[in-house]
């Protein structure tokens, strides 16, 4: 497809970055576009990411961003409720959506020659949503059932929600994405439409397209369908309430008769990747791999599962993205007959030993080699690659940051890992939770 001159309204020339499969440009109305070419199959993934999520809700309306995500399937001026998905299905495609604290995203996966059809519909519901009162009420029941399934029916789900709430003293990351039950029950049509008008606009959206399509083709289609939507002009920065200094460790104990296997988990408040400054987050990724992400050769596994056989499972994880913050977590599942107090003490001893001994050079080299290969394996999933860009860009990062990230990881030094560990593994900025069936475990 050739570019028709009249449609080329982009303010910047198309930039082809170091990764020659990835292009980005911005439409005249401020909508950012990322194209990842992957010609292996005649398929395309079309995603629109809004820079709004659960952490952008006002106090008292938790769950609103996620509720609106559900309602986005309930019709526009020209599409009946449910018709969006039906049209995608009728073409053999699939569609869905998801919400987090920092983003709300909608996607379709479809034959590459049907890209324009889904793009036209996605552009339509960016501005033309109509909601019938009855559909809103029924969908609220669906979301309440979803909450029951995901959270209330599962002690680990409830426990996670309680820990998240305790980790943040002031920042809205402490609120559940799906919302507190009593607040979901009070969500209504007017609130959803207000949130929609405030946040759904091209200047608050990122289009990510991956698959069997060229950047030129995408640009022409995007200009036609998204480029004609006026910028909102009212999109403001994302100023969320900031955390005060955290000066007191928090501890939670949750007892639930449905718990089959008790465990202890500690989450530390942690920094996330920042545009142009990803080193500390990269060091934390390496730290998580060293402590609990490399199977039987992890520090915690060696100490607690092999040497002392006090735990049946250990792990460490860290999510490097997050617009404001992230968290770094350690988990230990005690062996039978071992109490949570004992396994937590063993965890702290293993941590202290690691802080004293530092990074094992063999472990470090092996983890780096493995991560390098993971980058190659990751290319196998077109959807996964597209998702990486969407998550990063709605978390305040740039395409350049995403492309640089694998090298940033490779460049981490053992000294940086230990420095990050000293900074982040500070009990005063942590929540330690015990999940058990009953007291005494």
């Amino acid at each position, binding site marked *: 497809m050739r570019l028709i001159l009249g449609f080329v309204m982009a303010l910047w020339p198309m930039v082809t970055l170091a990764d020659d499969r990835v292009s980005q440009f911005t439409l005249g109305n401020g909508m950012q576009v990322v194209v990842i070419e992957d*010609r*292996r*199959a005649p*398929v395309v993934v079309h995603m629109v990411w809004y820079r709004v999520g659960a952490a952008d809700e006002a106090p008292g309306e938790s769950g609103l961003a996620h509720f609106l*995500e*559900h309602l986005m*399937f309930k019709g526009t001026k020209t599409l009946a*409720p*449910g018709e969006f*998905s*039906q049209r995608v*299905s*009728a*073409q*053999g*495609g*699939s569609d*869905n*959506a*998801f*919400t987090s604290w920092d983003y709300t995203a909608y996607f379709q*996966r479809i*034959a590459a020659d049907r890209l324009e059809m889904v793009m036209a519909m996605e552009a339509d519901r960016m501005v033309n949503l109509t909601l019938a009162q009855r559909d809103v*009420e029924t969908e*609220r*029941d*669906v979301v309440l*059932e*979803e909450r*029951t*399934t*995901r959270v*209330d*029916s599962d002690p680990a789900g409830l426990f996670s929600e309680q820990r998240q709430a305790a980790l943040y003293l002031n920042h809205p990351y402490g609120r559940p994405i799906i919302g507190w039950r009593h607040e979901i029950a009070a969500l209504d049509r007017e609130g959803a439409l207000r949130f929609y008008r405030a946040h759904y606009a091209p200047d608050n959206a990122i289009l990510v397209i991956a698959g069997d399509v060229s950047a030129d083709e995408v640009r022409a289609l995007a200009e036609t369908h998204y480029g004609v939507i006026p910028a909102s002009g009212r999109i403001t920065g994302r100023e969320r309430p900031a955390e005060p200094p955290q000066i007191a460790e928090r501890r939670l104990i949750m007892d639930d*008769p*449905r718990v*089959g*296997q008790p465990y202890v988990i500690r989450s530390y408040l942690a920094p996330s990747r920042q545009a142009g400054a990803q080193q500390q987050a990269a060091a934390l990724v390496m730290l998580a791999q060293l402590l609990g992400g490399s*199977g*039987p*050769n992890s520090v915690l596994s060696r100490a607690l*599962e*092999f040497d002392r*056989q006090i735990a*049946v*499972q250990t792990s460490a994880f860290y999510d490097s993205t997050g617009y404001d913050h992230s968290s770094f977590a350690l988990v230990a*599942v005690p*062996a*039978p007959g071992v109490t949570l107090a004992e396994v937590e003490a063993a965890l702290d001893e293993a941590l202290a030993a690691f802080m004293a001994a530092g990074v094992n050079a063999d472990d470090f080299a*092996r983890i780096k*080699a*493995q991560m390098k*290969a*993971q980058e*190659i*394996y990751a*290319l*196998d*999933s*077109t959807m996964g690659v597209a998702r990486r860009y969407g998550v990063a860009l709605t978390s305040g990062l740039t395409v350049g940051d995403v492309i640089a990230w694998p090298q940033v990881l490779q460049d981490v030094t053992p000294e940086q890992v230990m420095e990050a560990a000293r900074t982040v593994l500070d009990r005063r900025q942590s929540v330690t939770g015990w999940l058990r069936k009953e007291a005494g475990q």
Partner: protein
Amino acid sequence: MIARLVGLLSLLALPALADVPVQVVTSKGGITAWLVEEPAIPFIALEIRFRGGATLDPEGKEGAVNLMAGLLEEGTGDLDSQGFAAARDRLAASFRFGASREGVSVSARFLSENREAAVDLLRRALVEPAFAPADLERVRGQVLSGLRRDAQDPEALAALAFDRAAFGDHTYARPTDGTLESVVALTVEDIRAAHQAALARDRVYVAAVGDISAADLGPMLDTLLGALPETGAPLAGPATVGLTGQVVVEPFPGPQSILLFGHEGIRRSDPDFFAAFVVSEILGGGRFGTRLMTEVREKRGLTYGIGAGLSELDQATLVAGQVQTGNATVRQTIEVIRAEWARIADISAAELEAVKTYLTGAYPLRWDGNANIARALVGLLMDGYPPDYPTKRNGYIEAVTLEDARRVAARVFDPERLSFVVVGSPEGLDAE
């Protein structure tokens, strides 16, 4: 977060493929594999399946094959558990071993440049596993921990209760991972016996996708699998599906109940299979717009998700579905599902056309990614399809007429036999 229901009860996922060029490779040693060459990314995805799985566990030794599969990555020869993991990580390879009700699966990914060393390491894990006593104890502890968790997980409890209702005293009713009692009692000898019984050349299926040629794949298969025993333990005998319209309630605390429902299904080899498959997609395919999703979720808000479909075991078939709903609405949900079962044969020409368009359009889309393709191919191979099935499959869907769909719907979907297993605290529901 409006993910659709997928993978319930391992519902039949009809593999979809349009023009994927499958090569059939037979090694000198007689091992056959399906191959798709895809040199775009320098790695190989290898999927290996051994038929049999947990059904091979002797009476009283439930969980032996599962525990054996969990120990394959715990050392071989002079490599202990940590040494094996380090060697694997140094090669930047990924190996996953798993056991299911009817199979043992091995999923491997390795870079082209490390192919020989990675295959050799994988061979040692499969052929000469150490099964060291200390590792047995450690992995046993992990399995027991999972079983303790499952004993309090309504979804896991429902799956077991459904299997008991469906299969009575057949081996299919036994838990794949074993029980707290059976797993505690397993010995190293039991694990060695499970290894001999389950990993044999007479039951192996292989698919490879990625940066490897047919000429290289043959010798690789012999290297990897040639030293396994030629035959394994006998497979399970016929099963009858005992779902005759009962409602079974297993009390469990919590705000919601989980419902599994279904009855006997239809064989893939049956001439009516594709008509039944199309009907099952109209009823409960895992997406919006199906009858169950529309009636139970969209119109009434009774659930977050519902799906149903056909599945086939070696010795039995099922039509089965799953839904979760509040305890107060279990009765209503059952009534709605029964009503949908009763009107199943009332299919319009437009409805049939819509689902055929969806199925035939979705078919080629599912084939991207080496690992995805390898998984789908090994499934086809195991199910006995020919390598050109992918190019013919849409034709089978297209050939289903409205008359076929209505007739087969009435034949396969039977409201009288539709049975429910409920785990939760449902209100106003008596076991029937």
